[in-house]
Every structure is written in structure tokens, then in C-alpha cells.
């Protein structure tokens, strides 16, 4: 088992290197010249020689491969370079990363509990009231685009009722940081949770129904054990595998893909940072944020492998 984990963990390193290469060279091909962001056009035409010297000193004239390893070396030392507006990328990430993880973490935990819980109950009480209501809500939750849910929630809770702020992560005048964080997180977390609960609920219900129809559930019943044991011990454990895969692969989507939600709530997370960087051509930032999202993706895929191995002896012992 330990060997299995180590092997999977080591696999992440070459993957990350490969991705960083693709992104690095790909971004170089966009033809954005960083000098243009550093020096104003008038200076540029007036001091051509000085600019050339600057280029040389920044290493921009080196072959791409040299530039790549130079950048990589810096990254390994924790120096992610500078954004075109002059701030250190490391410090931007240090501020915004936790915001995104907060948003993703809360909605992940909430939607997992609610979604899987309702899904399992719907499967056990198939065609019951919870099942019917859950199915209708699941279709609604999946059919309505998230940004619309966000806008509706803002319209209702912030503008009509004035209960929650419509955006941002902190208020400048905040005294009680816990309450402040709660009110700011409430609407974006709710929006993300609604979408994810819908997906998880349907998924958990369907896999649980499948599992409950399998022969070993009948075997479990033939032992005369109580129903909750049949459902939780024999049913849930087997139904969990595919549901966990869906759940864990939501994390990279939440980290990189909650761009829309972060824009709607002007929530200063990684997603928003990346969209802004892309539109302004700030490629050092694009590079680093893309890599972070790729790293999260790889870690999640590693986690899925480990969970699968833990839950399923066929995977664990087959390795």
C-alpha cells in the first residue's frame, strides 16, 4: 500500500514538469513582450540602447530553453517572478489562494454532506417524498447556470433583504473577522453548493440504487442483520467509490473553474486573478496560476487513486 502511494506520488513530478513546459512555451508563442509593460512607449523609442541592455540583463535574449530552466530554478526556490504591475506573484498567490480554498472547501464539505445524504436517503426510500422532491430540485439545480443562481441570490439576499454583502471577501472596517468572513462567504458558498448538491445527489442516488440491487445486498439480508447495517456497511461503502471520484474531481473545478462565481461576487480568488491576468496579457501570472490549478488537479487524481485503493481491495491488492 505504501509502495502504491509512493509510486503514484512520484508520478506527479514528471507530469508537473511536462505541464509547466507546455504552458511556458505556449505562452511564449503568444508574442507578448514584457518590455512593453515595463517601459512606456515614448521611453522605448527614445532609449533603444538602454532597453536592449535591460532585455539582456533580464535574460530575455537567452534561448527559450535557458529561460525556462532559469524560471524553473527560481520557482523551486519559491520565487515565482513578478507580475507586470510589479508585485511579486508569490505574495499575490499567498493572499488569494487561501480565499479560493476557503470558498472551495466550505462548498465541498457542505455539498458532500447534503448531496450524498439526500442521495442515499432517496435511494433507500425510492419513490418516496424525499426522492421526488430531490429529483426535481436536482434537475433544477443542474439546469440553471451557476452565474444565474448567483445573480438571483444577490438580487434577493443583498439587494432586496440587505442581509449579505454582494461581493468581496472582507470589509475594510471589519472588527469581528469570523462574522465578517461568514457573511461574505455565505452567498458564493451557497451558489456553488446548490450546483454541486444537484450533481452529487443524483449521482449518489443512482449508484446507491445500483448497489442495493446487487446480489450481495440480498446475501447481507439473509444473515438477518439490521437494515441500517445493510445500507451503511454493505451498500454505502460500495456506492461511495464512484461518488468519491466525482466529488474529488470537483476540487480542481472549484479552484480553477469558479471563475464565473468569483466574478459574479467579485471574490478575489485564484480564478479571478487568472481571468484578469489573461485579459491583460500578464503572462507570468497566467503561468503560475495555470500551474497551481494543474497541481491541484494532479493531487486530486492522486487522492482518487488512494481512496479507490482504500475502499476497494481489488485495486489495492491488484497493484
Amino acid at each position: 500500500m505504501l509502495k502504491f502511494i509512493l509510486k503514484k506520488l512520484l508520478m506527479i513530478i514528471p507530469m508537473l514538469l511536462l505541464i509547466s513546459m507546455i504552458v511556458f512555451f505556449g505562452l511564449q508563442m503568444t508574442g507578448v513582450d514584457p518590455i512593453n509593460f515595463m517601459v512606456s512607449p515614448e521611453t522605448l523609442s527614445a532609449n533603444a540602447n538602454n532597453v536592449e541592455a535591460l532585455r539582456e540583463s533580464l535574460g530575455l535574449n537567452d534561448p527559450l530553453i535557458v529561460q525556462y530552466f532559469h524560471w524553473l530554478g527560481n520557482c523551486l526556490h519559491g520565487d515565482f517572478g513578478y507580475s507586470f504591475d510589479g508585485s511579486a506573484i508569490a505574495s499575490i498567490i499567498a493572499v488569494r489562494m487561501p480565499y479560493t480554498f476557503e470558498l472551495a472547501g466550505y462548498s465541498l464539505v457542505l455539498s458532500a454532506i447534503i448531496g450524498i445524504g439526500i442521495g442515499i436517503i432517496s435511494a433507500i426510500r425510492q419513490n418516496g417524498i424525499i426522492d421526488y422532491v430531490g429529483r426535481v430540485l436536482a434537475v433544477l439545480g443542474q439546469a440553471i447556470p451557476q452565474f444565474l443562481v448567483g445573480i438571483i441570490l444577490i438580487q434577493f439576499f443583498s439587494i432586496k433583504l440587505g442581509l449579505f454583502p454582494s461581493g468581496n471577501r472582507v470589509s475594510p472596517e471589519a472588527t469581528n473577522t469570523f462574522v465578517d468572513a461568514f457573511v461574505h462567504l455565505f452567498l458564493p458558498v451557497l451558489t456553488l453548493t446548490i450546483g454541486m448538491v444537484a450533481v452529487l445527489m443524483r449521482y449518489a442516488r443512482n449508484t446507491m440504487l445500483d448497489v442495493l440491487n446487487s446480489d450481495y445486498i440480498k446475501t447481507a439480508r439473509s444473515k438477518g442483520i439490521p437494515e441500517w447495517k445493510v445500507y451503511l456497511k454493505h451498500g454505502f461503502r460500495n456506492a461511495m467509490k464512484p461518488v468519491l471520484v466525482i466529488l474529488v474531481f470537483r476540487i480542481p473545478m472549484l479552484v480553477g473553474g469558479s471563475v464565473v462565481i468569483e466574478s459574479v461576487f467579485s471574490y478575489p480568488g485564484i480564478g479571478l486573478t487568472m481571468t484578469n491576468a489573461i485579459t491583460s496579457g500578464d503572462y507570468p501570472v497566467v503561468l503560475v496560476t495555470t500551474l497551481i490549478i494543474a497541481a491541484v488537479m494532479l493531487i486530486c487524481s492522486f487522492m482518487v487513486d488512494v481512496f479507490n485503493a482504500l475502499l476497494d481491495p481489488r485495486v489495492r491488492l491488484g497493484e
Partner: protein
Amino acid sequence: MNNQEIILDVKNLNTSFISDRKQVDIVKSVSFQVKRGTTLSVVGESGCGKSVTMNSIMRFLGSNARVSADNIQYNALRDGEITEYHLETYKKSNGPEMRALRGPDMSMVFQDPMSSLNPVYKVGDQVAEGLIQHTGMGKKEAREKVLELFRKLGIPDPESRIDCYPHQFSGGMKQRVVIAIAMICNPELIICDEPTTALDVTIQAQIMELLKDLQVNEGKSIVLITHNMGLVAEMADEVCVMYMGRVVEFGSLEDVFDHTSHPYTKALLRSVPVLGLADGQILETIPGITPNPADIKGGCDFADRCPDCTERCRQGVIPAFEIAKGHRVRCLKYDSFPEVNG
């Protein structure tokens, strides 16, 4: 016969399924008895309601099933005392009354060992689960009992195999584990639902041997569902032939095999393949197809395929006639004999 002799008495069992808001009758007024310490074989072609009958008794059917019966009586014999259980009175399929019986009193061996074991738990734990549930035994003690049973069931190297997962077992070994699950609480009545259908022939023989031994040595009562006539001849004390959800013939092995009376049973026995079929000799089949249970007509269900069919066969409900003591046939050819329930 009294309760001492009869372990399971089923009278007028009806099971139907609701599908698309329509009720489809699958098991129709089935009655039979299982004698203590004997084997009853339930035979019939696929879809005739053999499994549904047994699953109705064990209450393993889904929520779309409707089960009703005049009597499903299980007579437990403990220390010479008979306790009657009336299974038809239990409202909940998986309620405490049914659960208390499953395992220590009646248990089931399932058809497909590949899918009957939970893939994520060790086989030993799966066998021990029922024992721990019903006796409150500790894990260690239960493990000893499981090891003992594994040895008895001929699982090689039980000490290491007990901690294996089902996917590490072959089909025959898995079926032994399934049998172990059924046996661990030492039940009186074991229902085997085509226990060897999914196994290859050499393993089939071993598994049947095992069941026969259990019965002979420990006096278990066995209900064996099968469509293998060879197996019936070898195992059964009594035979119950089913067709389209009804018992068409019921009697001792001798009654049914040597004094075969119902045209369906005759056809069924003729269509058993035998080794060394002469060149050019064609294996007999029963003409026609099994009717769809959803479109039922009056009269005998076998009428369309029966060589002896008359006009009378297509009307009303055909009763059963007792042509010899304990030998009941549901066919109008025998209407000179007394009519019986069943």
C-alpha cells in the same frame, strides 16, 4: 403429518409484481410442505416462479412485490420443543421477526457466487457477521467458528484464506463461502437457489456432495431449486414441479420420476439430454414457448403445448388431484381422483 415432521408448510401462496401500474401474477396458489431432514427439489424451466416462490417465503422481494398466503408456517425444533412461526403474518419484509429467523433458523444459498459476496470485505468477516449478529459472540471466538466451518467445507488452508477478499477466490471456493454464510448459524432449513448453475461441472458435483453430506450428517432440511434433472434424481426425497407459477405435480422422487403423471413433467423428463444419444436421434424439446405471465388466459397454462389437451382444459381453474398418497397432479386427465388443495 404433524409439526414434528413438517418443517415448512406453505398454503396458497400468491406473489405478484406491480409493473407499469399493472399487476402481473408470478406465483399462483402454491402449496407444498418440506419434511424435516429431507430434501425437496423444486424444478421447472426458467421463469416458472421457482426462485420467486422461495424469495417470497424468505421475504427477499423488492417493494413492487405483493405476497399473500393462507399459511407460511415454519416449525422450529429446539430441544425437542416445537415453536411455530407464521411468516405470512409478519408485516415488514426486513422487520425484526424475519431478521431473527434468517440465519439461525432458515438461510439461503444463492445462485451466483461471483456476485453474492461483497467485494470490499474479507470473506471471513462476511461469514462471521451473521454469527456475531445472532450470538453476540466476540470477534476472536467467531473467527474460530468460521475456521472450523471452512475446514468442514473443504476450503484449503483456511487460516490464510479467511483473510482473503472474494476476488482472490475461484468460483467453487466462493460458493463454499456462500454456503458457509448460510451455515454459520446452524440453521435447520437451507434454501439453495440453483447453487451450482454458475459453476463448471466438476465443481458442481463437489458442491452437491457437500450439501448432501450436510444433510445426511446433520439432519438439515434442504429446498433445492434447480432445473437439472440429474441433480434432482440424486438429491431429492420429494419433488415439486412448477410451471407458470403453479405447482403442477408434487410427490416423492419415486412418484414423480417413475409414475410421472402430468404431461408437462413427462415432457420435461423426455427433454433431458443423455450421454450417448444415438446418431440421428434428436433431443426432444417441448413445442411452443412459455407464455408471457402478463397475458393470462383461463384454463391450464400448459394447454397450448400439451399433446393431451382437450376443450375442457381451456376453461376455469384446473384443480389438483391426489392420484396416490402425497402425489398431487394438476391435470384434468386425473379428475376421477379426489380433488385436493395444492
